[in-house]
């Protein structure tokens, strides 16, 4: 017993140091657990959710949609992320379950191509029509030029008026 007590006393500074280090290490361990890469953050979830739409809440992106249905979808995204699914795999899962309309950017297949083709084609056609219109207006312009001065002078009424004005003593 005496031998045991003297061992503790002899090594007490070392034991104290170990204890202090262990206490200091506790919060660090907790922090390390918080930053577990397997647990997706809200930002990770919203990065995917922002590119999706829930069919129930039309025109509201999934990341900002406040309904219970959307909350369930976001939770499901988080669950899939923690299982190691990639963004594309998760999106494909939702497409399989709920159809193409869950995607903010429709896949480039079938009639969806219209979404991508119609705006630029309409712009090109519009630009062409505008160009042709401007061309036409430029060519018409000379026809609307003012009449020659001689024509104006031949007007008897104007000539008489000008004579009278010149003759008046204002």
């Amino acid at each position, binding site marked *: 017993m005496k031998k045991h007590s003297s061992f503790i006393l002899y090594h007490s500074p070392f034991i104290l140091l170990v204890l202090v280090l262990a206490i200091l290490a506790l919060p660090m361990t907790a922090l390390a657990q918080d930053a577990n890469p397997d647990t997706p953050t809200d930002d990770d979830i919203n990065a995917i959710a922002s590119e999706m739409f829930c*069919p*129930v809440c039309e025109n509201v992106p999934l990341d900002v949609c406040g309904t219970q249905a959307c909350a369930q979808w976001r939770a499901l995204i988080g669950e899939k992320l923690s299982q190691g699914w990639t963004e594309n795999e998760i999106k494909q899962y939702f497409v399989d379950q709920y*159809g193409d309309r869950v995607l903010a950017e429709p896949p480039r297949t079938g009639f969806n191509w*219209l979404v991508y083709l119609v705006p630029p084609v309409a712009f090109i*056609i519009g630009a062409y029509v505008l160009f*042709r219109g401007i061309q*036409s*207006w430029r060519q018409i312009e000379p026809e609307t030029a003012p009449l020659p001065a001689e024509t104006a002078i031949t007007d008897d009424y104007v000539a008489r008026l000008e004579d009278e004005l010149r003759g008046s003593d204002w």
Partner: protein
Amino acid sequence: MIEDTHKILDGETPTENSGPKWGRLLIWGGLLILMGILAVGLKRTQEGPVQPGQAAPEFVLTSFDGEIFNSANYAGKVIVLNFWASWCKPCEQEAADLELAWLEYKDRGDVIFLGVDYVDTEPEALGYLTKFNISYPNGPDLGTRISQAFRIRGVPETYIIDQEGILSHVQIGPFTSLAQIKSVIDPLLQP
């Protein structure tokens, strides 16, 4: 175009600078096709749900257990097709009554109840079925195909299809009682 008009007024024939005819035809054709597609889409969105008296759309439902239910195989039976979701509070009002109705009809063999889970997540959907002890077949609306075919506007909605595949009743919103459910099914059944 304005050029052409001036040329015609001046007695000239607008042959020059009138642009290739095929190009104009292509533009007009494209515009017509686009307007046609838009018109069809607009018509579909304005149509509303399938109405009683119309033939019910055919559908295939795969239940949560993996069993496949094809509406074409149920000719001669009354189908009660209920659209619901776990996040839908009004659906909870009718859940118990639907189950009671199913228990009353299931032994007859001429009525089938099918639940279509609309835009839902499976764990929550299964939790809902357990919570209300629902025993008739239920499955997810994969790709929202069934809800699109019936053009539903929300949940809950219930479609009663008669033995000939004709829609006999559309219930928008929840049933309020067991008696109400029976009142739309009983007239379709043989005494």
